[in-house]
């Protein structure tokens, strides 16, 4: 169970105009600006739910994921994942969760994928036979057979992403946070990844929270959608609720979401 109550997070940003004069001015006086990344965010996600977290760029999606995974500390508010406060009990908390940051890599660049996996399994203290079983299952489902012995640097983006997702699941986490897991993937890989996430949820009752800009991800995966904009939670409902904002009869999902963002002025 994930509970988030009245979370706030503010970042300080230094701004200046372009140009030499402005740069010199900034040496003496920097203009500070506070960005309210998250303002009074509250929601609850039950065990085994699959929730899509959407919003325009810079809305605060990644910040939420980072708070939930114990990396960031919010300025105020309460939050618990399976009765643990992520940033306080970081080490015991992260044992139970899996995180995929679509834009970053957790694999060792110069060694075969399998080496990275072995290290991860030892870091998470996964028993040997369980590790082999999980690995077999993941290899099968994500089609990793050919690429496990290749160093990460020689893989294509799609291949690497599949390996990243498998890496985050080696310890059978109960909760999975996916931050743009399908970014840059081709159609086949996207389908494989979606299929896999669905299966993981069905088979192991994994709770999934996923952020994405790909509305087809949402359609394929999420029973429930959270919309965030300018740091505020604007909508908590089903995909059907989103479709109420459909601008025309034949509007695509992307157009619907664009209309939704317009309706909420975000």
């Amino acid at each position, binding site marked *: 169970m994930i509970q988030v109550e009245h979370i706030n997070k503010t970042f300080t940003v230094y701004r200046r105009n372009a140009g030499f004069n402005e740069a010199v001015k900034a040496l003496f006086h920097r203009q500070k600006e506070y960005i309210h990344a998250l303002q009074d965010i509250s929601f609850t996600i039950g065990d085994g739910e699959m929730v899509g977290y959407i919003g325009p760029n810079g809305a605060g999606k990644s910040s939420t994921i980072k708070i939930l995974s114990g990396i*960031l500390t919010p300025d105020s508010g309460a939050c618990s994942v399976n009765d643990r406060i992520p940033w306080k009990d*970081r080490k*015991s908390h992260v044992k139970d969760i899996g995180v995929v940051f679509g834009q*970053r890599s957790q694999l060792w660049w110069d060694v075969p994928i399998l080496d990275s996996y072995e290290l991860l399994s030892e*870091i998470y*203290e996964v028993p040997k036979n369980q590790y082999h079983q999980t690995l077999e299952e993941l290899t099968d489902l994500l089609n990793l057979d050919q690429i496990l012995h290749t160093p990460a640097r020689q893989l294509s983006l799609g291949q690497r992403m599949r390996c990243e997702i498998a890496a985050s699941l080696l310890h059978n986490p109960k909760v999975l946070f996916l931050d743009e897991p399908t970014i840059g993937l081709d159609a086949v890989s996207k389908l494989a990844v979606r299929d896999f996430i669905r299966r993981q949820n069905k088979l192991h009752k994994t709770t999934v929270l996923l952020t994405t800009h790909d509305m087809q991800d949402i359609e394929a995966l999420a029973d429930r959608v959270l919309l965030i904009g300018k740091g505020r939670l604007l909508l908590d409902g089903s995909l059907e609720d989103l479709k109420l904002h459909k601008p025309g009869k034949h509007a695509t999902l992307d157009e619907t979401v664009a209309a939704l963002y317009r309706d909420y002025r975000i």
Partner: protein
Amino acid sequence: MKKYISFFRIRFTNGLQYRTAALSGMVTQFFWGAMEILLFKAFYEAAPEQFPMEFSALATYVWLQQAFLTLYLAWVWENELFQTITTGDVAYELCRPVSLYNMWFARGLAFRLSKASLRCMPVLIFAWFLPAPYGLTLPHDISTWLLTILSMVLGLLFVTAFGMVVYLSAFYTISTQGTKLVISSLSEFLSGAVIPLPFLPPKLGRIFSLLPFASAQNVPFRIFGGDLKGDAIVTSLALQVFWFLMFLMIGRMMERHALKRVVVQGG
């Protein structure tokens, strides 16, 4: 503990695969060592009575230094760690059920040891075959060997703990270029990597030998060559322990503080 050993292992095996770098490093070290000894030879012949070390102790110092260069030099940075922090990839490291400090400490040890293990033997064997006093002079008593090994371990622990402070400073500054540059040149001079500390003016040398930098290569190599004896060994070892614990503490405090205010940039 087991996870940190695994961490050590993967970093170590990872370090072993860069063969060309090791080979070229070794060639450099042969030449550098030979040139340095020839240079000191010239000084020695000009005024042997003013030479602050035995010549054989100096040659031993130089060869050990070349063989174990990557163990103790401050500028052996793991740039990946700086990048991890500045690009925000550290987010993944923070999602692991391990202490960031211990994980990186194990990694730092493995990085230095893997580099050194590839390079040290050829240099040591070569130096051992050189005629006295230009080569490696081995001590006769077992206690000197043991003290050298103890001091080498302490020195390595200290250098790694010192490096951790510099890595962690990346959480506070956007670019670590400046810090790295200052630290590298300062420590190279103060640790006796350019010239052994006994060659400095006596007053200055005494001050320098109290500074943390002197707790790296300076102590074990001088014990091995017989330049440090008796009480001086005890004091130096105690200083090594002191500075190691000091930097361990500073690093851990920085870790705690940095993780509280960490901001992961770029989505």
